[in-house]
């Protein structure tokens, strides 16, 4: 009798461990983690064993070797004697350049078109609709190739389009005058920095004042004046210490000034218009998510439509907009790796060259993944912080 009860009791307890949701969950998770770890260990060991068999070495030491190849328009000092690591850095900077430019462009384009699509003007809203539907339904790779083909179809060097004889457009890109630093030009840069800081401070102060008193202040105009005016003032006062290098025609092309390659422009245009279309839809959905009562109330208070949009609708819409906007930014950064088809030397393109010249494919792929992962996580972290900041304060 007692015997039976005990077994029943034991059985009952074991069964409880297995049927209890919590303990069962833990068991399954432990097994899953073990399986994943075992799998990773297996493929790592397998790779090492096979690499050892083919007599290949692994490690990142090769990054210190000289690259021996040239890079078109590096943002930092680079020549063919520089190391593979520096070449990778040049690529990373190019990726960052086009990503940042693309994010700025796509945001401006997306917000503008998103608002305009809701316009009551039939022509404008239809135009935006067709832009959005066209660009977001055509693969971005094709769009990059399209813009590149368009830009390389521009007039050839001898027939360059001259803009006031200081800037030139041809199928090798856009060549604009470049600044030559002279003693004193530092002050112009300092004035520019001061102007930006002052503009930010004024807009903050203006917002605070408006929140408190309701009085508005033309902070955007003042800011613009400060950012542009201050450096120009310093420039004139110091007797124009900044020279401009005007591009001059040589046998093959122009020399001097700054050249923006068609590859960069094509990539930027494609990423901007493609991602801009998605952002446009996100913005539209965000605006539509704000209840109609909000704008009606604003109108009832006598706010003009422009101000209603800026002060009432958009701040509330941003809560809906920011999370999907973040993933668009991430997409844009990752899509920039398609640069390879037109020969823009981004991280993937230069990494590919290194992979080929050094043969260290595993290491290069690992570096690629680590860098894109860090870029994405950094963007997400920033956007999450921003999202928290603008979140509706519940009272």
């Amino acid at each position, binding site marked *: 009798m007692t015997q039976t009860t005990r077994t029943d009791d034991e059985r009952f307890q*074991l*069964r409880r461990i*297995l*049927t209890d949701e919590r303990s*069962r969950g833990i*068991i399954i998770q432990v*097994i899953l983690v*073990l*399986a994943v770890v*075992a*799998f990773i260990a*297996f493929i790592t*060991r*397998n790779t090492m*064993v*096979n690499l*050892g*068999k*083919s*007599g*290949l070495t692994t490690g990142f030491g090769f990054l210190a070797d000289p690259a*021996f*190849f*040239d*890079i*078109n*328009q590096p943002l930092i000092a680079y*020549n*063919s004697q520089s190391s593979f690591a520096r070449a990778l850095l040049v690529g990373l900077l190019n990726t960052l350049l086009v990503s940042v430019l693309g994010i700025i462009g796509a945001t401006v384009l997306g917000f503008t078109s998103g608002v305009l699509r809701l316009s009551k003007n039939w022509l404008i809203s239809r135009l935006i609709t067709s832009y959005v539907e066209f660009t977001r339904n055509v693969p971005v790779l094709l769009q990059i190739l399209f813009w590149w083909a368009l830009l*390389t*179809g521009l007039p*050839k*060097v001898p027939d360059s389009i001259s803009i006031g004889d200081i800037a030139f457009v041809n*199928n*090798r890109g856009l060549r604009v005058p470049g600044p030559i630093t002279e003693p004193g030009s530092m002050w112009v840069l300092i004035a520019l920095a001061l102007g930006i800081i002052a503009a930010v401070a004024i807009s903050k102060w203006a917002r605070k004042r408006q929140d408190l008193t309701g009085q508005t202040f033309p902070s955007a105009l003042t800011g613009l004046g400060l950012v542009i005016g201050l450096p120009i003032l310093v420039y004139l006062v110091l007797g124009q210490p900044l020279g401009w290098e005007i591009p001059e025609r*040589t*046998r*093959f*092309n122009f*020399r001097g000034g700054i050249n923006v390659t*068609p590859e960069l422009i094509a990539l930027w245009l494609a990423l901007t218009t493609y991602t801009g279309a998605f952002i446009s839809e996100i913005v539209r959905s965000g605006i539509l998510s704000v209840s109609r009562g909000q704008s009606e109330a604003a109108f009832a208070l006598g706010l003009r439509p422009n101000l209603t949009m800026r002060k009432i609708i958009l701040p509330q819409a941003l809560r809906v907009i920011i999370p999907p906007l973040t993933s668009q930014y991430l997409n844009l950064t990752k899509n920039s790796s398609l640069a*390879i*088809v*037109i*020969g823009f*030397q981004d991280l993937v*393109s230069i990494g*590919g*060259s290194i*992979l*080929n*010249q*050094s*043969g260290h*494919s595993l290491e290069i792929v690992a570096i690629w993944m680590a860098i894109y992962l860090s870029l994405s996580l950094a963007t997400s972290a920033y956007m999450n912080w921003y999202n928290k900041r603008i979140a509706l304060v519940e009272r």
Partner: protein
Amino acid sequence: MKMKTLSGIAVVASALLILTACDEAKEAAAPAPAPVKSATLDDIRASGELKCGINTGLPGFAFTDDKGNWTGFDVAYCRALAGAVLGDPDKVKWVNLTGKNRFPALTSGEIDVLSRNTTWTLSRDVDLGFTFVGVNYYDGQGFIGRTALGAKSLTELDGASICIQTGTTTQLNLADFFRVNKISYEPVPIETNEEARKAYEAERCDAYTTDASGLAATRSTFPDPKAHMIFPEIISKEPLGPLVRQGDDQWADVARWTLNALINAEEFGITSANVDELAKGTDNPEINRMLGTEGSLGKMLGLNKDWAVHAIKAEGNYSEIFERYLGKNTSLALDRGLNALWKDGGILYAAPMR
């Protein structure tokens, strides 16, 4: 319920055990001394086809004919190799590779041999872990530019834009040449040869550089070939040849001696037309040894004794292959030049079959 979960755990555990066991089995095999029998050769025999890596398309060297079959100078080598190993030149699986993915494809075993106008360099031979089995084309890096530019020499190209395929030795030679001569240029790197050529045609670049053999091929495809000139300078040595993975010496030997057989066949006057006749036996002991009627060269290689007969029957000897795809009567119209036999003023010199 208990039984179910327990058996689940057992399944996972046994799966882990199997994984570990596989791992150990592999490790046990790894440090063993190099096998006497060639693993690659056995694999090819077992699967009944040779996996050969070729270009994605380069006139003369690897291109599709009007029936859609791959053909060309580099393709012919693989067909000869398939003939030597399997007795049938058609038993080849073609794998088209770009400049970038050709080496990983060979390392990973996706292909058995790479016959894709690849330059033999020390770092590729040693550091990448490959074995070059010989040279089937002595090339050099050249430049093509528009006649209208009026430049007669590369040293006049100061400030020019130059289109180039990425990940090639040409990319490195270009940087070296312009650095040594202290000339500035704008490199325009493009992923494939085809796209680099298109960029040059769109006048994105003033000049375009690749192997000199490829330049002739490229120029022949332009609408107006006369508007383009090939610069006189050849800035590098580019010995192109097939390569295999390091570590399987017997397979490397088979690949090397198939190439030598094609070159020696030209020297001895063995052609695809007369090879069957000569294989019945001749007065020339060298021919007899090669074609298997005397000695046992085939057995030493681990092949049939008539291996060279099948290799030569595939597309003919070196001269026949060269003339068919690159020679005077083709659109490339290349001279034998350095690629003539040593007897004829070139440097093609295959080791004796003995």
